[in-house]
């Protein structure tokens, strides 16, 4: 990520001269208060927003240059997890996870194998036939994670995945993310403002303030930051 600027059409600048680089297999936290630009940063990564200036390269794809009709190719390289899960309400847990593979045109046998495998990994194999609204928040988030990693993305982007969950469940989610990071060698970028989690995980931490990077802690360095 080089010299990235983002100004919204209404003239509000959200991100100024951002320079970041994250290595493959890293686990990085991005922290910052409201309006620090962390949401904008994440949206630019999965190409919901385009950078106004500068360039973002993600797994070899120049995100800013990507045409609308080709965005789906980027989205197959990455997985995204949100605070509000974003599951399809009319599909079962299994169908939700399978959908991410179906759209890539994989054959049904492989889909079955991979979906069951990944549901097992997040501990929800027994709930495959349930609809999302029958599950607890923590379980729904695990389904969302399963869907995000089922096609083995290089990068997993998490936008406050624990925002709606209590501390105990949050730690469970973090354990799953850590497992994915280690077992699949997936790069994880996680936006959060839950500093307890950040302290416990002892990972690299990037602090944003008013659209600029104010601190970049190496793994284990982070003690506290005033947001």
């Amino acid at each position: 990520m080089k010299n990235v600027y983002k100004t919204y059409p209404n003239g509000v600048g959200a991100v100024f001269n951002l320079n970041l680089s994250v290595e493959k297999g890293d686990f990085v936290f991005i922290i910052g208060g409201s309006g620090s630009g962390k949401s904008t940063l994440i949206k630019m990564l999965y190409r919901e927003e385009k950078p106004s200036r500068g360039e973002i390269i993600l797994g070899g794809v120049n995100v800013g240059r990507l045409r609308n009709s080709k965005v789906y190719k980027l989205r197959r390289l990455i997985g995204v997890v949100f605070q509000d899960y974003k599951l399809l309400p009319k599909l079962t847990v299994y169908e939700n996870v399978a959908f991410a593979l179906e759209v890539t045109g994989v054959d049904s046998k492989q889909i079955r194998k991979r979906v069951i495998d990944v549901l097992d990994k997040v501990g929800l194999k027994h709930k495959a036939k349930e609809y999302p609204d029958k599950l607890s928040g923590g379980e729904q988030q695990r389904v969302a994670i399963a869907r995000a990693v089922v096609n083995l993305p290089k990068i997993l982007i998490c936008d406050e995945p624990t925002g709606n969950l209590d501390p105990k469940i949050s730690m469970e989610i973090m354990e799953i993310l850590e497992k994915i990071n280690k077992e699949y060698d997936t790069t994880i970028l996680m936006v959060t403002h839950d500093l307890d989690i950040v302290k416990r995980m002892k990972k690299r931490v990037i602090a944003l303030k008013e659209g600029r990077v104010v601190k970049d802690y190496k793994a284990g360095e982070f003690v506290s930051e005033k947001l």
Partner: protein
Amino acid sequence: MKSCRTIYRSMRDALKSVVRNFSLSLASITCITITLVIIAAALLIADNVKNFTDEIEKDVTIVAFLDSDVDDQTKEDFETSIKKNTNIETFDYKSKEDVKEDMIKENETFSKVISGWDKDSNPLMDTYTIKVHDVSKIKSTAKEIESTKGVNSVQYGEGLVEKLVGVFNAIEKITFIAAGALIIVTIFLIINTIKLTIFSRKREIGIMRLVGASNLRIKLPFVIEGIILGIIGSIIPILVVVFGYSTMYDYFNGVLFSPVIKLVKPMPFVMNTSIIVLIIGMIVGMIGSARAVRRYVKV
């Protein structure tokens, strides 16, 4: 293989979504049904008007009267010149003797007087009854015939025919324009209805994009869904066309008001109209969905 799978999965998703969003589907289907009934009626009327004017135009003929002292050679020349004229469809020769026979049959009072005429005293003339392809050009064709050697005079209902043709052409055009306008209005109406139903699934489309569905993979189920809605929506209009029109035809005995105005026979006319209605329904449903989704697949 991969694209087959995409099409298969899209069709499965489309069917699922018609069933799972049944109340919304019903709204679109009702809208399509009502407008297609109106379109079908317009098509039936327009085709009947066209048929009627065509029938009348077919009955319009030019009668050419030959000079009374015309010889066979001139008649032959006249026939070859008619055959060369591109606007002339058929012609029918009647000698003055034939005309005499016809007149005897037609009128009893004069029949005795007329039957007294022999070959030389017969004041009638040999005639050619000529049918033309294009009635709107009848005036110039008649003039051409009149100027041919051996022709005494021509008759084709001057003035009246031209007026009639003008009126019929206008009616024909108006009914077709009305039908066309109706179709366009319907398309917009249906597109809007489908747009509204898809709007409620905006979030769904957003999630599909998020997990890496290509625009085609998102659009295809919606487009197929639109076609399915169009097909379901055209069932009732087609029934109305097939049974309604046949019943009406039988009820009026195939004519309207007077035997002059003949209705088009139901077979295969209703089948053709039904197919047109079905195709309109499918295309409109398809365009409606495609346009509605297009808005949401852009970032």
